[in-house]
């Protein structure tokens, strides 16, 4: 079993296609949409997590290529500059997986394993010390 976090960018030919359905049906992968911004009939992008057998994940990427869907694979991506952090907690308002939480010590805690690289925290941080490493 493997896991990939992807950013997909598709043009107007793909936005009407049931991509998630096809991924599940053809390649037996588990999908989790972390963020999607799609203008129907125009263009869109999506941050997607897929889990499945390694060979199926490879096939899923081939499938994106065939459809001319651009994809970027996220590695361990969110970088939090802990030394600069003022521990205000604004980023925890938007973190969907509670990877960013306020601890009992009233400091910000970041659990990389829970992070799905949705990137919502980057702009929610008022002092701009969270970034993404692609």
């Amino acid at each position, binding site marked *: 079993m493997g896991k990939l976090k992807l950013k997909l960018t598709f043009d107007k030919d793909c936005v009407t296609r049931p991509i998630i359905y096809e991924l599940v049906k053809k390649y037996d992968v588990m999908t989790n949409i972390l963020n999607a911004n799609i203008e129907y009939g125009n263009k869109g992008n999506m941050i997607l997590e897929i889990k499945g057998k390694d060979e199926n994940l490879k096939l899923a990427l081939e499938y994106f290529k065939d459809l001319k869907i651009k994809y970027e694979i996220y590695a361990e991506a969110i970088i939090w500059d802990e030394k600069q952090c*003022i*521990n*205000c*907690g*604004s980023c*925890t*308002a*938007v973190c969907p997986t*509670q990877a960013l*939480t*306020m601890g009992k*010590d*009233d*400091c910000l805690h970041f659990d990389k394993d829970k992070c799905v690289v949705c990137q*919502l925290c980057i*702009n*929610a941080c*008022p*002092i*701009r010390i969270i970034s993404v490493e692609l």
Partner: protein
Amino acid sequence: MRSIAQINEKIKKGKAVVVTAEEVIDIIKEKGYKETYEMVDVVTTGTFGPMCSSGVFINFGHSNPPIRMQSIMLNDVPAYGGLAAVDTYIGATEVSVKRGMEYGGGHVIEDLIAGKDIKLHALSNGTDCYPRKEILTTINKDNINQAYMYNPRNAYQNYPAATNSTNKTIYTYMGTLLPNYGNITYSTSGELSPLLNDPYMRTIGVGTRIFLGGGIGYVAWQGTQHKVDVERTANGVPIVNAATLAVIGDIKHMSTKYVRGAVFDRYGVTLFVGIGVPIPILDEDMLKFVSVKNSEIYTKLVDKSGNVNIDKKFNYAELRSGTVKFNGKNVHTAPLSSLYVARNIALTLKDWINKGSFELTDKVTDLPFESRVNSLEIREIK
């Protein structure tokens, strides 16, 4: 009863007992009110939150030939040109004409305090006495004359928590609010907050010496939108936004640890300001006020999508826990002000008083206890 003069005598001798507004809660729990009152002279408070109504007055000094600056830019952020020749006011929320919301007055102030060089570009019509029409140079905190923060509204005594009833994410000065009551944000240091520890401002007034941005400052006046005739719980603590402070202090002694430029996504620029107020424990009543706990401080909830009050209040212990029950669901809560830095401020102020480098002041006059906030009506121009 003890007086501020008596407390200052003890501070000079290094004998004053100073604790923070958090520490005093545990001491009372252990020793009771009477014994704690006998022991504790001063309780220190602290807050470090986004405070938009903030800014700095600057005098640049005169160039040769001199200029009467009318249009003024600091790192491409407009500063006020309607004062005397080389005076200005840079407000925290002003945004860069080049970089937009990513950099603004709050960041200029932070960079000034950090000692960085700031680009100054000013234009003028030119006059007989001020012939220069343009100036382009750099300034920093060491080569300018006065630079003092004057913040018209800081340290709000309580503030409503915020949520969003619509089906779209909204971007506000209370942070990013997720659709369908998806989260609740709040901004307070709660039991450490200056005005929540002296809800009727018995000891805080014009002239009160305070910690401001890492240096020494003073309460200058009532803050704008200062409001005292508000709903309170039995302990006297307002459950809505109430009193505010206008504060003043020299930025040359401040630190970027306690003054930080900030951006609220798709809303704008602001400034995190650190404020700490010492509260003299003049009598047992004062001790009762500073004993207030997060579980005893309530705030109302406001729907920021239409600025509508929701008939719901929470206490800060509930909000601090990270989740509250609302409309039958568990809703995630998030703070906007830093309790960590607020605590650091209260401890720093305690340290200053213990070392004898900070004495308490009697207020020169009270903050008004009768005031109302007008709304702005749309009136016909005649």
